[in-house]
């Protein structure tokens, strides 16, 4: 356990070394958040702040900020390292240490999430102070607790996703493209930018069948109290189901890949 905690600490420290980049990272995420919020403000200004499809400006701003919290925790992005280490053969180093290879990558990604808490969390806090009057508190304490649980679920889905896409490198699929293509699907179908409420109904149905919405949309929905207790439990089970499905898929591929792995002709 201490070993993994050390890995997490090392990732945080290595990011902190480049302080200027660190602050630029804060600025980057701040710009993106602000643009989203201002676009919603201005869109709702054209209808004089009325309700559109049953949702008000305050709903949208709360949604954007809450889904950003989910994104901050779930933004793990280690598949690229994973794929690279398979491609270059560095994975042999992680295979011979007496710790689980995949747990090492997961620990690294947790370190990344901790860094994100600062680089994304800080601008998030500042911005929410600006838009304070629009942000709704969680419906009840129970909803808030379930929200925290679903955040954990979102993190697990992201980790298994990254494991799955990284392992594809065994079959010479370039890691950067996989990551890029997945991020495009995340933009489209997760509701991270436009909530699924506003999607045309066929797309809404499609998105609900895919794992992307379980990362951003479900936690935000739970926070805003759009689900009753049955709905919440159903949503959490959806998340759990996706974690299992993705992990089993990954595990099959991983075992096959490792069995056929040859490094530098070895």
């Amino acid at each position, binding site marked *: 356990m201490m070993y993994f905690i050390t890995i997490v600490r090392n990732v945080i420290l290595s990011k902190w070394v480049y302080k200027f980049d660190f602050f630029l990272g804060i600025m980057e995420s701040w710009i993106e958040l602000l643009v989203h919020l*201002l676009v919603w403000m201005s869109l709702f200004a054209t209808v004089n702040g009325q309700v*559109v499809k049953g949702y008000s400006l305050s709903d949208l701003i709360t949604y954007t900020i809450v889904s950003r919290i989910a994104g901050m925790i779930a933004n793990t992005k280690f598949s690229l390292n994973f794929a690279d280490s398979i491609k270059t053969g560095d994975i042999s180093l992680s295979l011979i240490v007496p710790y689980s290879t995949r747990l090492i990558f997961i620990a690294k990604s947790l370190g990344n999430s901790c860094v994100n808490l600062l680089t994304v969390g800080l601008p998030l806090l500042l911005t929410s102070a600006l838009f304070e009057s629009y942000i709704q508190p969680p419906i009840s304490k129970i909803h808030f607790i379930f929200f925290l649980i679903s955040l954990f679920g979102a993190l697990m889905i992201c980790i298994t996703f990254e494991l799955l896409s990284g392992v594809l490198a065994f079959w010479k699929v370039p890691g950067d493209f996989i990551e890029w293509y997945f991020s495009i699907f995340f933009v489209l179908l997760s509701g991270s930018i*436009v909530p699924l409420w*506003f999607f045309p109904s066929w797309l809404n149905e499609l998105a609900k069948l895919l794992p992307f919405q379980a990362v951003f949309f479900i936690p935000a929905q739970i926070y805003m109290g759009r689900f009753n207790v049955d709905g919440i439990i159903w949503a959490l089970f959806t998340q759990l189901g996706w974690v299992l499905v993705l992990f089993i898929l990954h595990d099959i591929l991983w075992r096959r890949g490792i069995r056929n792995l040859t490094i530098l002709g070895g």
Partner: protein
Amino acid sequence: MSNFLWYLKLYWKIMCMNYKSKLWYHGKKEFFHTLGMFLSYAADIFVISISMSLFNSLGGFNFAEIMFLFSFELLAYSLTNSIVWFVGDTYNLIVRGTLDDFLIRPVNPFLLMSAKYYEIGYIGQFAISLVLLFLSLQHLNLEWGIKEWMLYVILLINSTFIYMGFTTIPSFLAFWFGNTNKLTAIFRWSFKRIIQYPISIYPDPIKVILTVILPYGLINYYPTLVLLRKLESTYKIFVVILSLTTVGIVTVLAIIYTWRQGLANYESAGG
């Protein structure tokens, strides 16, 4: 003039050679790159269209006008990035010193570098933005004569110059400060997000910043105002066009100046 033609031929030749050598190994990779660019912009347009389908306008622009704005920015952006794609590699070029390769040849190193790094993957974006341009013009019922098209081309080239300034100058700072990849990334990608929407949606202080201090608004917002006839008086149109071209020319001079100063400061590997 013959000198210019000679350079054009050289540029073309290096580009072709470079691409042949790339396709030899990674034909698949180039294909996936183009497809990915295509998909990611399709996703952007899709997101804008969904969020706008429920509302009438955004910052005084309707959907077709937003798409015109989007395509204008995308065209300037792809022109810029296909030409100065080397900024993504400044760490190797300037800090690790592979720039030496280009300095020891008897041609202009800037052009040589640009040709060597020319990125053909932007073809997907050119296609998207041209399709968007024609679709939006159709929807807006604008009849463009030869005069308007000429103005369009001039403003586009001008915007490309301004964009190029924002892309290259931060990366040339590597001559003095070492690794500036993150800074360049902010000027290349983050501000792009801001100007995908008309800057009229932002609060006044941000509008002023985007017009005067970091003139990103001049890349697509003001040209769109002129081209879509959103300005009433001819006097205003004249002032906008004049200031746009002035900024464009100043940017080109600034790029040349930083490049020269940077080269004078260049110390090869470990510099």
